[in-house]
């Protein structure tokens, strides 16, 4: 549906963020409408990080994600219709319905796999980097994981391997830990990147709510990795969206209304605080309006375009049948 955003193209960045947000909202709606589509881990609140990092990548780069994967997949150019179909377990899903939301895979978009084992993607991405290096490729490997992932020994071991072998891998840590809530990280370190630092991996920290900052920092990180100087650990400090680990499909912060980027008086009701102070998508819209990059009409136009695409995607997914149970044993062995 959409090509990944280009470096420096802030409108494309914004477009990508809107796409991520509207996609996730549709996933929630699907979960409301269908009694059984598994448990979702949405990427809402992480859009600036997702779009910014994806803008720094090139076509052949390989991606290994964790359970909070939808945003990256879509941003990398996977077809939203086939992605929604997969999330619904349908035949025309990216994985033919076999993987579901936790294991979305689109080889053509360099999307190798999603591991739902905490830490799984980190080890696999280091392997992808090893493979790319062995093949003499210029592509790099990227892995996306949460702050809690540093609890797992496999993550530490993989960081060590990447550092030892100077592998071309970008470790993107989405730090959505927040005090007061049950932390998704239980690491005794002062800051997360103390661990990669100890292993002599270059680390960078960025405000993950700021798409421009992420795009710039990610570009620098990717240049380092692609240049053969070894791995980078990029820590994006993020908002923890209230729905990030919910088990029931509700809109904990309401449905996005981009006109609230300028009609701020209308921000009210139970979600007012989040919309006003924490919604990075609204904040980016506001920023682009303020510096004249976009007009209000253009913002709404982008949103409408995205929504139309998502509507189509949903229709495609709904129309897709379930795969035939006889397909169960098709791809057990290669």
């Amino acid at each position, binding site marked *: 549906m959409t090509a990944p955003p280009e470096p420096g193209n802030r409108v494309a960045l914004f477009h990508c963020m809107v796409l991520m947000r509207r996609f996730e909202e549709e996933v929630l709606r699907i979960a409301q409408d269908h009694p*059984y*589509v*598994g*448990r979702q881990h949405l990427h809402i609140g992480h859009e600036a990080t997702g779009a910014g990092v994806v803008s720094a990548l090139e076509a052949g780069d390989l991606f290994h994600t964790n359970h909070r994967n939808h945003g990256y997949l879509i941003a990398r150019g996977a077809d939203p219709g086939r992605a929604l179909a*997969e999330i619904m*377990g*349908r035949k025309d*899903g990216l*994985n033919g*319905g*076999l*993987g*579901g*939301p*936790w*294991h979305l895979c689109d080889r053509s978009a360099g999307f190798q796999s999603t*591991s*739902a*084992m*905490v*830490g*799984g993607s980190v080890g696999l991405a280091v392997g992808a980097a090893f493979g790319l290096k062995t093949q003499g490729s210029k592509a790099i490997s990227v892995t996306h994981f949460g702050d*809690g*992932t540093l*609890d*797992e*020994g*496999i993550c530490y071991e993989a960081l060590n391997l990447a550092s030892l072998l100077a592998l071309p891998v970008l470790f993107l840590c989405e730090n959505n830990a927040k005090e007061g809530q*049950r932390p998704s990280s*239980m*690491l005794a370190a002062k800051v997360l990147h103390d661990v990669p630092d100890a292993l002599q991996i270059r680390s960078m920290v960025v405000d993950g709510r700021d798409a421009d900052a992420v795009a710039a920092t990610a570009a620098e990180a990717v240049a380092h990795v692609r240049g053969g100087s070894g791995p980078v650990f990029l820590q994006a400090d993020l908002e923890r969206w209230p729905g990030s680990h919910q*088990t029931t499909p509700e809109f904990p912060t309401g449905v996005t209304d981009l006109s609230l980027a300028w009609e701020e008086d209308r921000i009210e009701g139970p979600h007012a605080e989040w919309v006003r102070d924490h919604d990075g998508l609204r904040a980016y819209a506001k920023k682009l309006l303020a510096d004249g990059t976009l007009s209000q009409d253009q913002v709404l136009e982008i949103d409408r375009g995205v929504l139309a695409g998502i509507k189509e995607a949903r229709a495609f997914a709904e129309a897709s049948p*379930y*795969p035939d*149970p006889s*397909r*169960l*044993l098709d791809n*057990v062995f290669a």
Partner: protein
Amino acid sequence: MTRKTYAEALIDALVERAGEDENFAMIGRGILGHGAQAHFAEPLMEKYGHRVTDPPTAEGAVASLGIGAAMAGTPMFLHFGTASFAMEAFNQIIHEAGVAHSMSGGQIKVPIVFHMFHGLRRGGSGQHSLSPQSMFANNPGLHLMMPTTPGDVKGMLRAALKSDTPTLFIDHAALLGTEGEVPDGPYEIPLGEAAIRREGKDVTIVATSRAVLWAEAAADRLAGDGIDAEVVDPRSVVPLDTETIVGSIRKTGRLVCVEEGIQMCSIGSEIAALAAEQAFSSLKAPVVRVARPPAPVPFSPPLEEAMMPGPERIIAAVKTVMG
């Protein structure tokens, strides 16, 4: 006797044990999972929440912590969540907990219960749907319990919590909401005692965990066809009550093995092998096994459904062995 859910009975056992032994400690997050029964853990958390450690996501070291503490004399209950996650601690379970007592010449005891939920859970896909019981049973030094009823889970958990042998206690989340009669106060169901869930004379169905419910449903329907099936629930896989199991097979002369795990090298294989070894002269027909097909669990609902060794498949199997 009180009518209770499985979830309540499970928590009862923990509350009773915690009340008796102030040295008893627990580790893990969300002992009853995240489903509709999660709230039944409240009585435990309210009273003894301070004795439940919420650990990092680090299954290997968390298991080691439990094992080391148990070796040091603190009886432990360790909850892994999904059995799939326990695979990150597989080495610690089999190569530390399982061997310590024997390798130390009997000096070291490891009073720990490893609790986890196995099986198809709807939407678990290939990484959250493991049934590891057969793999665990292929190792020495570990007891392996798989209760099915509210009455059993309480008595078996108590027995496991009081044992000095490390015990794998493998539950199925789909059982948490089932109801049944549960004796009041503490009691133990001795290890290694199978339960005959339903007496019958024509065919023996040996099933474990949730598959027992499917076997019972199948037996009910088979009764309508004039087939009188006996349903045997080993409950404890290690030690296994071969006497009861083989006794039933000798009596009926026919065997169907049912389990939610993969068939190859499974508990079903083991029971079938026992039949071929110890009930050979009584067998009147080939054995049939019913299990999960040997494929990663697919996400798609109808495909996941097709994985289940439910009543239909059991009935078909029984009809095959009845000839």
